[in-house]
């Protein structure tokens, strides 16, 4: 994964002072703006160790999850957390996860996909429209909108959950998928991100050129602006997807019927069976289910990594 101790560190005699190592280093950094310096950046023992620690900190839970998913309920109690038990039950566990309780896990998986496609997809679409409009059009009250958006970013969704519940229950929408999808459509952070991105990524001259050529506003947006926004769109899509995929609190108070649960609620319900009199204790299925739950997210990140990274870096370099 990451290179640990490196020969280059011998260049800086004091490993505990990485900041000074940068300035007092033997190789003057700006001697030549060649590619040699960027290819072999200075290394610091402290930073390497820190990164290593963080790597362990982030990877160990995943390793634990992966190993634990191969154990039976008995094996979980008997064996050490970071090594395999005698019996390898991963395939059995996966099979059981999908068949337990009439295969409700599959239903939860589909529910989650639906919430993500409609909720995160819709949120992204609305964020693109709003961000583009705010970035490229002038209208009265724009500063007010800015204040509202920034304020909305600061309010955690959980704080709004109870008022939202009361509102939705007056509309008769609780315990339906709409109660999860509609609030998910609003992503102030996504809107803000799109706004900033659109300001940077779309030259006003380009829009003016399109208008002079006779393109209508809709056509300008879809044919000219949208392709330029692609990296930003992917970033917002990833953020909203992760937020919707992991959303727990909103469905928790909105939904009662397990048939509409997303994976988060379903797994929590399986887990709390262990806290119930006479309940079936199925930690092995909870763990396997959790593993299966993060697989699509990992896949999405790996597939979209290229766009996502370019999106995050956008605007950081003046061209």
């Amino acid at each position, binding site marked *: 994964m990451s290179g640990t101790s490196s020969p280059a560190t011998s260049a800086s005699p004091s490993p505990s002072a990485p900041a000074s190592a940068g300035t007092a280093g033997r190789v003057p950094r700006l001697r030549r703006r060649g590619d040699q310096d960027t290819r072999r950046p200075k290394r610091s023992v402290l930073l390497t160790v820190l990164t290593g620690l963080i790597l362990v900190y982030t990877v160990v839970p995943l390793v634990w999850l992966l190993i634990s998913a191969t154990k039976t309920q008995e094996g979980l109690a008997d064996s050490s957390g970071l090594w395999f038990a005698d019996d390898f039950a991963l395939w059995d566990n996966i099979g059981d996860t999908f068949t337990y309780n009439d295969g409700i896990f599959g239903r939860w998986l589909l529910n989650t996909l639906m919430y993500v496609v409609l909720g995160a997809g819709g949120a992204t679409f609305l964020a693109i429209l709003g961000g583009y409009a705010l970035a490229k059009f002038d209208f009265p009250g724009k500063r007010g909108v800015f204040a509202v958006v920034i304020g909305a970013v600061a309010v955690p969704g959980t704080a709004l959950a109870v008022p939202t519940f009361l509102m939705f229950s007056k509309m008769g929408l609780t315990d339906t998928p709409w109660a999860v999808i509609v609030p998910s459509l609003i992503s102030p952070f996504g809107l803000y991100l799109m706004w900033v991105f659109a300001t940077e990524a779309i030259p006003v001259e380009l829009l003016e050129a399109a208008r002079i050529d006779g393109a209508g506003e809709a056509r300008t947006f879809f044919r000219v602006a949208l392709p330029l926004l692609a990296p930003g769109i992917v970033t917002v899509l990833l953020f909203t997807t992760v937020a919707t995929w992991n959303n727990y609190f909103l469905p928790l108070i909105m939904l*009662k019927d397990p048939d509409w649960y997303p994976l988060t609620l379903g797994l929590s319900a399986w887990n709390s069976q262990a806290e119930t*009199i006479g309940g079936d204790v199925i930690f092995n299925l909870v763990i396997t289910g959790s593993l299966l739950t993060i697989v699509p997210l990992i896949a999405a990140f790996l597939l979209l990594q290229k766009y996502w990274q370019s999106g995050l870096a956008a605007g950081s370099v003046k061209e």
Partner: protein
Amino acid sequence: MRRTTSRLMRGLAVLSVLALGATACGGSDDDSSGSKPVSADDVQAALKKGGSVTVWAWEPTLKTVAADFQKKYPKVKINLVGERSGDKHYTALSNAISAEKGVPDVAQVEYFALGQYSLTKGLTDLSSFGADKLKDQYTPGPWNAVSEGDKVWGLPMDSGPMALYYNKKIFDKYKIEVPTTWDEYVEAARKLHKADPKVYIANDAGDAGFTTSMLWQAGSRPYKVDGTTVKVDFSDAGAKKYTDTWQKLIDEKLLAPINGWTDDWYKGLGDGTIATLASGAWMPANFVTGVPNASGDWRAAPMPAWTKGDKASAENGGSSLALPALGKNKELAYAFVEYANSGAGVQSRVKEGAFPATTADLKTDAFLNTEFEYFGGQKANEIFADSAANVADDWSYLPFQQYANSIFNDTVGKAYVGSTKLIDGLKSWQDASVKYGKEQGFTVE
């Protein structure tokens, strides 16, 4: 039964309790539905006509009961919704009642939480269906929990007369006698921990349900409830007996600092870290599925007594099925509740491992002679039934016990982690409960 409420959930629970209180005032004008007598013929007619009943309950054996009930009354559809338990269940129930939308026709309500819903007129008085005549069917503890004067707020579904579960393998290994009094229990705790520092006699990191059960057994009666007049007092002799004994275990660090119902807990029960567990008679089912690797190691014994020879016991846990006042299809809902908790449903539930609250089922030979494979063939039901018969019936919980339990860790919980004494912790629990009760409009003495 459940522990470790996150602060967020607690806040939400409080919010919904407040909301519940608010609607109780508005909704009280249509409580005529609760007092009109409904005859058995009305119920039969409704069963013939058919309809659907939504049941919010997590009791696993109800699945079979619902299926059987639908077979018997094909026109009735039982819609069993039950993935949630504990706090989440009550939050959802309180939210639905305060929103006056989506209220279930039948809800599982634990004994300690019944008062909160009955007092805010959230439940239907089942005596209008003749449920008050079922009194003699039930053991005194659970019946006392569901009834209030001539009103009946639910039918007892199960009960949790307490027993002491102990890991025989560990006790045998260190040649320690199974304690019959709490003094012997403390002595056994010292011996065990000395013999193997990894072994603790019990886990306790502060658990409201356990503490109230222990006070119950020790003869303490901290809560007195008369309508909206309540009294909270942890200064009686029974409470002192409990705190004196338990304080020794805390001071000498003889309790494993493990929260109940966590994976750590199940692990500890399996690997010998936790050597005993004083809990309800429903525990065997959880042993079987949660601690499969220790099958054969554990046994049940009567609860240790406070004075040698005393047989007094207490209840831990247990729940009822109740009819929320805003639910529909009351006749069908009642028919289902009666079937599940008093009729043929009880038998099928007992077969699946539920511990009944009905005296007749506790006395059958088949029940008493059941050999528990998990307990090495022990006829544990004899111990449980004996315990059920010795539960005092004058215990009551607060009408806002759910809230009180939620602040247990902020008050009494300090005794487990700091220098606070258990008895002082109880005092501050008392003060906080009194304060809350006054804020809610109760007359607190």
